[in-house]
């Protein structure tokens, strides 16, 4: 996973509610795809629309996305996260996220930050008022979003997720260190609930 420490750059406003993962990347693009190379297809059917900022200057290639409520709802496709990262994004700031999308972000080094909708709107207005000049900074270590007007807004994140992002840790490697605990659990469970194991024994 790509580590995340700090990012400073443009924040692209896409203040629509309920952006689902089908909108980010249609499933047809995922058939036979690789993790890399999805970026050019991100938000494909919105490209060229005047209300879509991510395919034109100044916000094309921005590292930060400002989003509305329930961002990333719908399908579990992790391709949505790979697509956003392929477009150059490292952070999405939204009032709320779809649960599965939120989990997928942490697996890839895309930082999902929750801020109140009113504050995200203010940042979006500041970006649009000074396109190309205003900057937002994400400081994961300090757990702060620094707004274009210089205000540091704290955000919450689970300590273990923060650590994993900062260090780019691989969850599988961490869990494999617990192999003895897992095997012990399985031994206890197969003794306590043999029906759950024997019914599918090969």
């Amino acid at each position, binding site marked *: 996973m790509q580590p995340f420490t700090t990012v400073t750059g443009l924040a692209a406003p896409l203040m629509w509610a309920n952006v689902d993962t089908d*909108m980010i990347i249609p499933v047809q693009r995922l058939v036979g795809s690789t993790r890399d190379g999805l970026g050019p297809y991100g938000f494909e059917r919105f490209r060229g629309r005047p209300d879509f900022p991510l395919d034109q200057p100044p916000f094309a290639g921005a590292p930060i996305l400002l989003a509305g409520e329930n961002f990333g709802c719908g399908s579990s496709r992790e391709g949505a996260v790979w697509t956003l990262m392929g477009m150059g994004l490292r952070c999405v700031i939204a009032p709320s996220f779809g649960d599965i999308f939120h989990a997928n972000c942490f697996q890839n080094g895309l930082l999902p930050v929750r801020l109140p909708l009113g504050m995200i709107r203010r940042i979006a207005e500041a970006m649009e008022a000074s396109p190309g000049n205003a900057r937002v900074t994400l400081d994961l270590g300090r757990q702060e979003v620094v707004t274009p007007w210089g205000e540091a807004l704290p955000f919450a994140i689970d300590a273990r997720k923060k650590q994993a992002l900062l260090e780019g840790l691989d969850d599988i490697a961490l*869990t494999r260190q617990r192999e003895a605990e*897992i095997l012990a659990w399985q031994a206890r469970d197969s003794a306590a609930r043999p029906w759950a194991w024997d019914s599918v024994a090969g």
Partner: protein
Amino acid sequence: MLDRGALPRKTGRVDDDRMTRTLFAKLWDPHVVADLGEGWSLLHIDRVLLHDLSGARALAEVAAAGHALARPDLVFATPDHAISTAPGRTGETFPGGAAPLAGLRQRARETGIRLFDLGQPGQGIVHVMAPELAIVLPGTTLVCGDSHTCTNGGVGALAFGIGASELSHVLATQTLMQRRPRAMRIRFEGTLPPGVTAKDMILHAIGRFGTAGGTGFAVEYAGAAVRALPLEARLTLCNLSIELGAKMGLIAPDETTYAYLAGRRFAPRGAAWDAALADWRRLPSDPDAAFDADHWIEAGDIAPQVTWGTSPEQVLPITGRIPAPASAADRAALDYMGLEAGRPIEGTKVDWVFIGSCTNSRLSDLRDAAAMLRGRRVAPHVTAWVVPGSETVKREAEAEGLDRAFLAAGFAWREPGCSLCVAANGETVPPGARSVSTSNRNFVGRQGTGARTHLASPAMAAAAALAGAITDPRRA
């Protein structure tokens, strides 16, 4: 039997009191292998489902990373997403799906996981396959790289969709790091009116609570109207939990559940069945268990539902009028759907009808749809498809003549798969065409570029095919 010393410490949460626990807590707590702090646990995963898109990819990535599968005996695969459902199809009929399917077959051979391949009993939409074969059992945990995995919670399991990286983690370790969700209960009390189905219940709930209403929660559906539902209808109810924002939907197991599971391929037998039953009977939420959120819906108030917009929360009773837009999103939805505010939804002309998907493709769904036919024919301007959810559903339906009834009425009778629900298989509704679909997502473009989707029950979909327009199935 369920208490085996692996329960986590109390965290002060309302549903952690061992004396008054929710169904959710009774599923979650015993599966905690390690408490990781801050509400995070390493959970044991008892069953894994793989399909031809996310499953084939995960097997390839796990192999590329040099990991062996932790427990191949707990992993079950079937192709569903990127396969054609045309009669006489093979794995190559949809060219784009040939490589993922070939990958799934090869990895299944190499790893020893069970694969239910095209034409074999068991093949079908993963969430039809798992309950049908009793791969999912009450009291188990189950994951799949598919958001509609919540369907399987209808048997009293903790089942949820995950992404590709989490799926690799499960395949490599048989565990998953998860943050404990909060517990919500939605009680449907009273009796459903005639002609109203589980699909209408859950669409009604989504309309009331919104597509983010369940975000961060595991949702238990309870109440007299839920207990009265057959098992397949419970799967439909749980299927749309993710459209409510909840990764997990669940229903307490009861005699209906046990009668459904008994004798199925991977159900316990003999003494093991008796031991399982004893465990399962302890799963229902205790009468005084407290929930982080608790909702109550009067089942008698629910009418057949149909969506009008491009989000499942944009839904109304069949007797309703298309609402005036309350937001820019509403206006965009009306524009995309080609609808006019203020007009009754009933009577809206329909071009396509799709009966299928992990929501509504089981034998009881096909029976509900077939019961509407009564010798009538699909309207001449409508293309209507029935896509059974699994090879077994298809064979059982054919054994009772449902295929002939649908074909005689002018429906296409197809092979099992996801088909027009996901449109990742070369099967699409044409641009601008209006489709009444028994699936779960009416997102822009979900059934094909420019396709306009109205979600509804199988009975309403069949009624729409016959009338050529959106119709109240109670009068059709």
